[in-house]
């Protein structure tokens, strides 16, 4: 099974991505993650002004199959949330790196990005996970 990857993003082992966009960092879940979840029906996000910490839950993605925490790959303050996902949770399945970004963060330390995988490393990690029997 092959999945899509965004070469501009960096990835956490818990299958979230983060991508610098000017001073902000957009955060979402990977194509592999949305595939594991199957049809997403609901997304619960933090509020603008909340702090998120790398490795801690930023919200919940609920599908017809499961309800999973999404973990923030980066620390900082939430400056924008993707409110359109309230009405269009299916975007996470359709376009996980594009219009289905979850939150935008003002990163407190962009150095954290170095601790995450790039797209090539993440693809290798996903393939390894797949071989182990997946999730």
């Amino acid at each position, binding site marked *: 099974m092959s999945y899509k990857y965004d070469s501009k993003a960096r990835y956490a082992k818990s299958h979230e991505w983060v991508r610098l966009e000017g001073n902000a960092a957009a955060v979402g879940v990977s194509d592999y993650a949305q595939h594991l979840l199957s049809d997403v029906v*609901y997304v*619960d996000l*933090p*509020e603008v002004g*909340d702090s998120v910490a790398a490795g801690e839950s930023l919200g*919940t993605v*609920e599908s017809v199959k*499961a*309800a999973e925490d999404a973990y923030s790959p980066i620390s900082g303050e939430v400056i924008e949330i993707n409110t359109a996902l309230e009405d269009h949770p299916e975007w996470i399945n359709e376009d996980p790196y594009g219009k289905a970004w979850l939150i935008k963060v003002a990163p407190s330390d962009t150095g954290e990005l170095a601790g995450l995988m790039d797209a090539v490393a993440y693809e290798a990690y996903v393939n390894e996970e797949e071989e182990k029997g997946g999730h």
Partner: protein
Amino acid sequence: MNYIPNTDADRAEMLKVVGAGSVAELFRDVPERYRFPTLALPPALSEMEVIEELNALANENDDLHHLACFLGAGAYNHFVPSVVDFLLHRSEFFTAYTPYQPEISQGTLQAHYEYQSMICALTGMEVSNVSHYDGATAAAEAVIMALQMGRGKRNKVILSPTLHPQYRAVVHTYTQGMALEIVGEDVAWVGPSAGSGSALEALAALLDKQTACVIVQNPDFLGRLYTPAEMQALADQVHAAGAQFVVSADPISLGLFVPPGQYGADVVTGEGQPMGNAISFGGPYLGFFAMKKDDVRRSAGRIVGQTVDADGQRGFVLTLSTREQHIRREKASSNICSNQALNALAAAIYMAAMGKYGLRTVAELSYHKAHYAAGLIGQIPGYEVVSRWPFFKEFVVRCPRPVATINEILLDRYGMVGGYDLGGDYPGLKDHMLLCVTEMNSKAQIDLLVEALQEVTTMNPDRLEDEAEAPHE
């Protein structure tokens, strides 16, 4: 017939496994003299004799088929049409427990859907769940939902002092250990000098950015009705503070008065018992819970929806049963996802049978009879109707004697259940009685109550008179 499910061989094998020689050996820790004591039982009775004895015991109970009832305070004696019990006792409804594949029970889901639809119409809200345990737990769930909506940043809850005292107690129980600040229960709220809006203003003064919600009961525990304008003014202040406005309401009152959905309520809860459910001995009842559509994800309980199947035919599904309640309990709004299905069904049948105009008639009769009673009681020397505010079917009377004494005489001499003794919950209301009048109280009953209240000012309870007479015997 032998009901023992295992054979001698089975038992011998089990004894071998546990290393015991006989079954009797398993009881050796019980001293021998206690093992088979002789029981002093009367001879066995025939079925006919047992029924006779049980009937005799049952007849010792006082019940509302034989007593006039002027007691309310949260549980109300309203008429239950025969159709309610008839449909309720159909085995399709009566025997079923929670179907774990809910969609297989289309009849149950349809009944729940109709219940929800009528609760929405009654409260003026967008969405209703399929009920909670009772009015108290529904109020507590509203608090927990508001805390969820505050995302842990708001930890203050404002409770009206005239929210039912037991509901307030249940809110405290539900939220213990959550480090909340629960305020409002001691604000100045009553007395002949208190204006009708003053209690609400006192609550509004407690609002701040830490406030998750404000709960007000309307009509309140003392029967007082707040006007839609007064309630809307409070709702606006609650919303300006970013908090939720929760209204606990008597569903019968909503047949006549403006529903809370029209004066800014975010959540409407209440006790559903007055609709088709017997008072019994305090339960089982049902709590109704209605909200705005945007907030359903933060709610507890379950919601049934209507949809179409693959062939385009109407069907019913469990639209929302937040997954957290089953698999992510630590993230759940509430871990109580049970509802009171049969009681909610009774309420649904009641609402359908009464209809919009029937419910209005029940409310009007209760309102007018209560005001008739209050008018007469206010003229009895020694009594004062404290309720100078608009009220629905309950009002407060200051009595010349302790309420317990009066009630004892009313029950023993007049076959009446008197009002609720307010002194226990409100120390300032010692010797104050909360009287309730519904469509079930005839004019003759009310007139007799007035006469009785007049007479009890000089009477002693039977118990006291017996004691007084004892020396003469």
